[in-house]
């Protein structure tokens, strides 16, 4: 490309990963809209793209774009942290195309084939039918190979170059992240054992390894964007790792309340997962504290200009600190105790938490990484927000918050009517769905979803054009 300021192949590869991630992000929102419309108009695309298919695409696209953006983020920061070009970059590029091809095939099969007969060929080639990790087994194996290649690159680079604290954390975290995926690849006739291992993947990803990944990325962002001191940032990172893994690993117990597992999981799940918000508070305090400290140091020298070198990216990093605490922490704590969870488990309450947590904890910081890449690619010293970045941020944040509140209210009536009063039967379920609060909640969710989607379109327009704006310092 003509105006490419990137000097390392690793960063170029990162931009490939980010580009594909952004496309799949769009697909995620699109199929989310289809599912949201179906709640309001049940006949919409009936027996063409049924709710189950729209939802599979919605949540799998979510996982895929985040994994792509996470791998991209690591390739982006590797040269900065280690001081050398990434080892095995050729392999990285090859695996990128393998990964993209696999994902495109899986999406097309989900969309066009949808379901299969009840035998192992379906599990191998069409769908595994297990929420979030529906990808058929051939794709599982492909993903493992691709990720092993990525881990090799990370380890080889970390061991050859300067191994900072951030790189050390990432090396351990990414290995766990990949290894845990293996727990979700088996098949068993016993649904309790099935869900036991299934949660190893889902929980130990999003409530342990992904969170630690976010901690490492936030640390990198603070160093690059506001010049925070590495020693302080890395100390915080270790504290966060201790708290995140200390609460998150055994916090898996809150998924073992009702799947057939022994009663003692009530206590383990309740108390360890109740501590899960603590590191998220710590991360929030840490980001804002460092920001204030660096700005204060600069102001004390008589320089009244912002310390932030990338306004839109830093905005998303701060939103991450807040959104992680609010979505994963508060909304998670709402229903983590077994006494509450007995009634909220499997209602729109969970869905409300899922939306705000995935957005607040992961989407925000990964969008921030997109902006960092745009800055680097265009050789900008200090990148400022545009009107588009502000509109995109406001609409996406407002839209997701709105969806979360609407789903929380819908969940509330579902808990009261379907669960507490009617005991979760077929009739109870539909009585809950017919409630006015529920129906209106779903209308509002759709409206807020549309706002989020428009915000996303503006975000893409901004990412494509902000590098050319002339109000940055170059």
């Amino acid at each position, binding site marked *: 490309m003509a105006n490419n300021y990137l000097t390392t192949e690793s960063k170029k590869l990162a931009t490939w990963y980010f580009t594909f991630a952004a496309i799949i992000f769009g697909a995620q929102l699109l199929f989310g809209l289809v599912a949201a419309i179906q709640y309001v108009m049940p006949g919409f695309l009936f027996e063409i793209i049924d709710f189950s298919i729209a939802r599979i695409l919605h949540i799998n696209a979510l996982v895929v774009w985040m994994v792509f953006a996470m791998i991209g983020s690591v390739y982006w920061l590797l040269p900065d942290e280690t001081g050398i070009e990434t080892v095995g970059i050729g392999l990285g590029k090859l695996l990128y195309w393998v990964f993209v091809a696999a994902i495109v095939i899986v999406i097309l099969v989900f969309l066009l084939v949808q379901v299969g007969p009840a035998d192992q060929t379906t599990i191998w080639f069409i769908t595994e039918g297990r929420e979030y990790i529906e990808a058929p087994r051939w794709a599982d194996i492909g993903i493992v190979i691709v990720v092993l290649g990525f881990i090799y690159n990370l380890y080889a680079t970390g061991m050859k170059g300067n191994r900072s604290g951030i790189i050390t954390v990432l090396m351990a975290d990414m290995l766990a992240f990949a290894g845990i995926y293996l727990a979700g690849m088996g098949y068993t006739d016993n649904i309790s054992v099935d869900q036991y291992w299934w949660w190893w993947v889902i929980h130990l990803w999003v409530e342990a390894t992904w969170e630690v990944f976010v901690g490492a990325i936030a640390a990198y962002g603070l160093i690059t964007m506001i010049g925070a001191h590495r020693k302080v940032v890395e100390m915080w990172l270790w504290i966060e790792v201790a708290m995140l893994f200390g609460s998150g690993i*055994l916090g898996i117990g809150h998924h073992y309340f009702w799947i057939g597992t*022994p*009663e*003692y999981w009530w*206590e*383990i799940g*309740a*108390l360890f997962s109740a501590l899960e918000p603590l590191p998220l508070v710590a991360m929030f305090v840490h980001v804002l504290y460092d920001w204030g400290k660096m700005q204060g140091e600069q102001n004390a020298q008589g320089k009244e200009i912002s310390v932030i070198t990338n306004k839109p990216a830093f905005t998303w990093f701060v939103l991450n600190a807040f959104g992680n605490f609010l979505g994963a922490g508060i909304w998670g704590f709402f229903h983590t105790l077994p006494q509450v969870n007995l009634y909220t488990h499997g209602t729109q309450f969970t869905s409300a938490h899922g939306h705000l947590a995935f957005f607040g904890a992961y989407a925000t910081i990964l969008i921030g990484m997109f902006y960092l890449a745009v800055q680097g690619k265009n050789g900008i010293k200090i990148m400022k927000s545009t009107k588009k970045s502000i509109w995109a941020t406001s609409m996406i944040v407002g839209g997701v918050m709105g969806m979360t509140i609407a789903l929380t209210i819908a969940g509330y009536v579902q808990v009261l009517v379907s669960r507490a009063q009617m005991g979760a039967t077929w009739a109870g379920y539909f009585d809950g769905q017919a409630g006015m609060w529920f129906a209106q909640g779903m209308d509002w969710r759709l409206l807020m979803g549309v706002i989020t989607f428009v915000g996303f379109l503006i975000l893409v327009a901004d990412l494509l054009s902000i590098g050319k704006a002339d109000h940055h310092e170059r």
Partner: protein
Amino acid sequence: MFEPFVDVVPSFFGWLNQGPLTMTIFLHTFIVLPMFWIYKQEKARLESEA
């Protein structure tokens, strides 16, 4: 003193689960205690470096 066991299968963890806090206090204590030892070691190291 001990609560009678009510769960389907008796086990060590089931027995630890005597009330709403027993097991978690036990496990958290086990997690935190060695940190005192790490603390002491690191303190000695910092002092010898100074």
